[in-house]
């Protein structure tokens, strides 16, 4: 009886859903499931900014390299939540309802929203700094469920050491970070520990939104000898304002994200978010080729590279030694 009850409820519900779509006056055809051999990869991120978009592009290129071409045998769907976790939940519902083959959640809330749907579809998270702490996977080892992914935890201690190596007589280091971002909490704690060990003083200026980055940097430049930019979404989105304030006072900026060297940072020892995307895409490909996500291990990005900005160095009056220059993957002149 319960079965027939739930079935008739199903039917009534589907009629209601259809009626609503018609009533809204916008009957939009579904874009999914065009042909039988086509696979669907649905990607969602919390907000659009260069680093997270680079992750998306990396995923796409990795799929392409493995023989999944968009429009041919691949349907690639991308949605951003415009910074709102509630919309992240709706996007997750949409993806699960369209029965995509693999779901990808870029950033912590987007990945959490996908998992909270309770779906059995494989979920790949990306650019999540602390996936275990965020409840996304119980462990970084093969976890047995349907979730696996790539963490973007940067080598913070090595980055702090790089500051000591590049900037002469550095005593205090400033950090601009959004206290509302889970990844930044982890990174700032790691930076404090590394600085304590290496004998530096740390000042943290909070920026709750991109518009506050300018003011937070102004607070720092009077107090510190160098500024360290962790992979904070807010600081990354307003990196130009941070660099312009720091450069005007001749305070060097050392970043965790290589793309920021082109924006004027002195140096970055980190990964390119595009590589985070490529490693994420590799996981997606192996799942599409039949691997069980429960048997794959989650990992932290492996490829880290040193980027230097020679133009910024000469403006700051810093000489880059030859062995530093030799170890750099790219020097911007």
């Amino acid at each position: 009886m319960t079965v027939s009850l739930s079935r008739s409820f199903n039917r009534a519900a589907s009629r209601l859903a259809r009626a609503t779509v018609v009533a809204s006056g916008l009957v939009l055809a579904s874009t999914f499931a065009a042909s039988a051999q086509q696979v669907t990869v649905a990607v969602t991120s919390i907000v659009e900014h260069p680093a997270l978009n680079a992750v998306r592009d990396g995923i796409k290129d990795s799929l392409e390299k493995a023989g999944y071409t968009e429009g041919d045998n691949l349907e690639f769907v991308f949605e951003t939540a415009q910074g709102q976790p509630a919309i992240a939940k709706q996007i997750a519902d949409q993806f699960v309802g369209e029965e995509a083959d693999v779901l990808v959640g870029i950033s912590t809330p987007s990945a959490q929203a996908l998992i909270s749907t309770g779906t059995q579809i494989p979920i790949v998270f990306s650019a999540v700094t602390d996936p275990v702490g965020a409840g996304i996977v119980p462990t970084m080892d093969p976890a047995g469920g349907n979730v696996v992914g790539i963490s973007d935890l940067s080598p913070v201690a090595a980055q702090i050491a790089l500051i000591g190596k590049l900037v002469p007589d550095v005593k205090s280091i400033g950090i601009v970070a959004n206290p509302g971002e889970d990844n930044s909490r982890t990174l700032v704690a790691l930076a404090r520990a590394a600085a304590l060990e290496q004998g530096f003083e740390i000042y943290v200026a909070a920026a709750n939104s991109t518009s506050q980055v300018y003011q937070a940097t102004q607070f720092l430049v009077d107090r510190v000898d160098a500024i360290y930019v962790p992979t904070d979404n807010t600081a990354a989105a307003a990196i130009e304002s941070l660099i312009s304030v720091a450069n005007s006072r001749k305070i060097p900026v050392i970043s965790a994200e290589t793309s920021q060297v082109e924006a004027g940072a002195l140096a970055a020892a980190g990964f390119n978010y595009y590589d985070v995307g490529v490693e994420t895409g590799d996981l997606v490909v192996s799942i599409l080729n039949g691997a069980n996500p429960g048997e794959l291990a989650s990992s932290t990005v492996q490829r880290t590279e040193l980027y230097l900005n020679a133009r910024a160095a000469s403006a700051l009056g810093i000489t880059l030694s030859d062995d530093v220059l030799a170890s750099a993957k790219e020097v911007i002149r």
Partner: protein
Amino acid sequence: MSLFAFFGAVELGLIYAPLAIAVLLSFRILHFPDLTVDGSFPLGSAVAAASIVGGLDYITATILACCAGAIAGFITAYLNQRFGILHLLASILTMVASFSVILRIMGRPNLPLLNQVTLLTPFATLGDNLGISPLYSKSLAALFIVIIVASLVVALLYTEWGVVMRGVGENPKMARANGIRTKNVIYAGMALSNALAALSGALFAQWVGFADATLGAGTIIYGLAAVIIGESLLRPRGMWLAVIACMGGMILYRVAIAVALNVDAIGLKPSDLNLVTATIVVLALILPKTTWHRQIKTMLSRGRDA
């Protein structure tokens, strides 16, 4: 739009329904333009999540969340009534301050509740036993809670105290002339309003599985949109209908976002989402007012006959 997306939107609309009532109370009944909900909504989610993770049961956690919201609402009202700070500014100050309080309460900006026993768990178990798919049981659970909350609020609005509050909102001078202590009524009304917003936040954390410090952005916009959509479509007379209308408005707004998420089908970019959502809401508001909607109706009915 798939069934899953549709019921996801209905579920989220129901989760946000107490918030719609909260905005109805502050903006429409008390005539107090209150932006505190941008703070009390995430505050509710933070208190509920931190309490559950800290080992309290989900009922206590949800009640504590409402209390935290009530305190936030009271502070806004107190700043306004006692110190004469403009209501908008008073509410902005409380909203901004609550961001720091939220980070203190959670100890971190994002607190997951995935795999925890929450208010949703007993409903999910019941749904499993009855053979109802989780797709509906989450929405039904939210509906059940929202019906109880809405009934309590409506019942309250029809009591003597409720009538007094409506009087204070409509004509504070007259209320004062009749010997009503308007300050106390506004304190209580604002506390109730923000307790409801915090309840929405607590439901969000438990249904969606995490609390996040960024959850508050845009909350007041959802609330106002819901109240206005509800009023335009239902033209409610009386408290019962006003409450139902604003909740219906919230569900419609969420369904509009779910429809707008299909933007790629009409060649738009994901970043066009907000624009498309706004357009759908505008259409929903003006369609019933145009003369040609009647012609479409006749056309549709003729089509059905043929």
